[in-house]
């Protein structure tokens, strides 16, 4: 019995199960406390409100998987919103072209960060922290005021409601779900994806096994940049503005989602569906605070910070359990080998 429990705890999906159970429990409590929670649209809104975060989380999960980190995601998102708003307001270029430009911009930015980190063997947090300040500053250089997007095509796109059952989702949600699907396939079923896990597990081993470590690492940061800019577009669709302080602190929300969903900060373990639930849990907490009405919005950050702490500490506990378990199993093996001979 005890051993089974230990085995469950050591399973790499343990944290994922905890997350799913926590989500269901929170939602259950919500239904019990507030009638509003019963409405299907409340559930759909979890996605609608967090589409951008979902996309950004996917990107940051890639970084965490190789044992890296990307602190620039929130700032890249803000920069993308700002550039997009500026382009749509001050130039006559069509929406798709503007979107393409900002996507390329974010992706290239990620690639440059990845190249600097990998080529010069620098700590990712310093470079991406600098990247974060760089993008925030650049956003302010473009405009220190809010730019509202009035482009009719873009606004129409933002207002599009895709009916699902008795509720609806937005275009951003569709993008987010597609991103999640593609990311899950890439991580699970392609050479590139598996190389990411291998690097996260043991970088020098991966190199000795002949895997393309350099290329993969640069690609991972590039993907993170791409996801941040895609998230920026989803964010712009929701807010219809470009503003210097958009996505402030989003890097922590994204890291928290990923970690809550079972990604190990040391790299090599984690998967995309977990990250999805990580975001949903944050969404539920936000909804609670909204429904409650009297709590200040500042509580969200604090609660999410607390949640991140709890899950990281849980991870530490799991890792310890696991190493104990391996030690024990090899002991058992040694002993049983003795009795055999």
């Amino acid at each position, binding site marked *: 019995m005890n051993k089974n429990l230990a085995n469950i705890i050591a399973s790499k999906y343990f944290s994922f199960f905890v997350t799913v159970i926590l989500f269901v429990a929170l939602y259950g409590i919500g239904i019990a406390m507030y009638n509003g929670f019963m409405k299907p649209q409340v559930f759909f809104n979890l996605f609608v409100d967090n589409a951008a975060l979902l996309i950004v989380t996917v990107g940051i999960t890639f970084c965490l998987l190789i044992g890296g*980190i990307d*602190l620039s995601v929130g700032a890249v998102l803000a920069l993308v919103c700002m550039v997009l708003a500026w382009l749509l307001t001050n130039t006559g270029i069509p929406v798709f072209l503007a979107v393409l430009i900002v996507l390329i911009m974010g992706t290239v930015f990620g690639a440059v960060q990845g190249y*600097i980190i990998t*080529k*010069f*063997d*620098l*700590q990712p*947090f*310093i*470079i991406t*922290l*600098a*990247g*974060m*300040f*760089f993008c*925030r*500053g*650049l956003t*302010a*250089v473009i405009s*220190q005021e809010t730019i509202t997007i009035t482009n009719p095509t873009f606004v129409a796109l933002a207002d599009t409601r895709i009916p699902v059952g008795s509720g609806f989702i937005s275009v951003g949600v569709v993008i987010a779900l597609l991103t999640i699907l593609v990311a899950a396939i890439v991580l699970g079923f392609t050479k590139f994806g598996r190389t990411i896990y291998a690097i996260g597990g043991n970088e020098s081993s991966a190199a000795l096994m002949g895997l393309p470590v350099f290329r993969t690492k640069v690609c991972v940061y590039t993907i993170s940049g791409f996801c941040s800019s895609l998230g920026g577009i989803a964010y712009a669709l929701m807010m219809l503005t470009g503003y*210097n302080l958009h996505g402030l*602190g989003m*890097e*922590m929300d994204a*890291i928290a989602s990923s970690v809550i969903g079972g990604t190990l*900060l040391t790299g090599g373990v984690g998967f995309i569906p977990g990250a999805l639930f990580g975001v949903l849990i944050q969404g539920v907490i936000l909804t609670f605070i909204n429904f409650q009405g009297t709590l*200040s919005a*500042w*509580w*969200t*950050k*604090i609660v*999410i*910070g*607390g949640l*991140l*702490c709890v899950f*990281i*500490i849980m991870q*530490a506990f799991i890792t310890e359990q696991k190493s104990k378990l391996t030690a024990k199993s090899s002991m058992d093996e040694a002993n049983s080998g003795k009795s055999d001979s």
Partner: protein
Amino acid sequence: MEKWKSFTSSSLFLPVVALAVLVIFNAIFVDGFFSIQITEDGRLFGRIIDILNRSSSLIILSLGMTLVIATSGIDISVGAVVAISAAVVCTLIGGRGDGVAETPMFLAILAAVGIGVLCGLWNGLLVAKFKIQAVVATLILMTAGRGIAQLMTEGQIITVYYKPFAYISGVIPGMPLPTNIFIALAMVLLVVIVMKKTSIGLFVQSVGINATAAKHVGINVTMVLFLVYAFSGFCAGVSGLIESSFIRAADANNAGLNMEMDAILAVALGGTLLSGGKFYLGGSVIGAITIQTLTTTMYAMGISADQLPVVKAIAVIIICLIQSNKARELFEKWKGNRNDSASVTTKVKAVE
């Protein structure tokens, strides 16, 4: 020549040169940059004093940051802790229009610094006990911390009308310089004396260079990390006092904003490797003054506070590249190749 070489390879070379360049730039473009006047009541007055005045809180922050980075950690929560400390001191003294303090100021100061230490201890707990990577551990407080500060001030900017509060970053009548310069000086002295008279510096470096080996010689690594993060929190708490006293208010959104970047930049500029190990407090202090001079210069050139991070981010990346062994290797290789090809071409010419 020998002397020049030992100077260029010294850890102080980079910050001193950077500062010199900035000072020369200012001397040329800013009128009366060097002039220091004395007012009737004996106060010193001038651009340089102004820069020193403004850099005091950054100097204090970078002291803490230097030690944290030396243990191969990082503390990106300092900006948020500054905001928390500012919120505590201002809410405790209170925003009463008649200029009466609700709590005695020294108690409020004690509480603010205490909260700073508490924040540092929290970071230390996560890093030392739970072994969470320092970036992530302090990221939690970096984002949640501003939330906490907002809750304390209830989202308001609390303005303090209590007169003595302004003295923290102002001039106490009869003194030649603003108090905060003395505070920074006292902090630097304190740290220097502690480093000279105890072995904390040696232990911090040992932990930063090789934590496993440090553990094997009986150094209590957990305790060292705790101390270092607590000290960083303490520094942030003191900085919070100065920052809030400057504007005589607590602004949870903007107090200490982007200061973590400045502090990291100051430490890196001062010659301490961001990967930890040997640290240079003197370098960090000069680094902090350099950053403040840069900031002041940039403001003078019409760049806003929001835009400034662009310049600083680029500076950080350049310093990282200078520090990086890999970059140095690549550069040597490139230089070698160039020499090779150069000698080949000369040879070819000789044959012709």
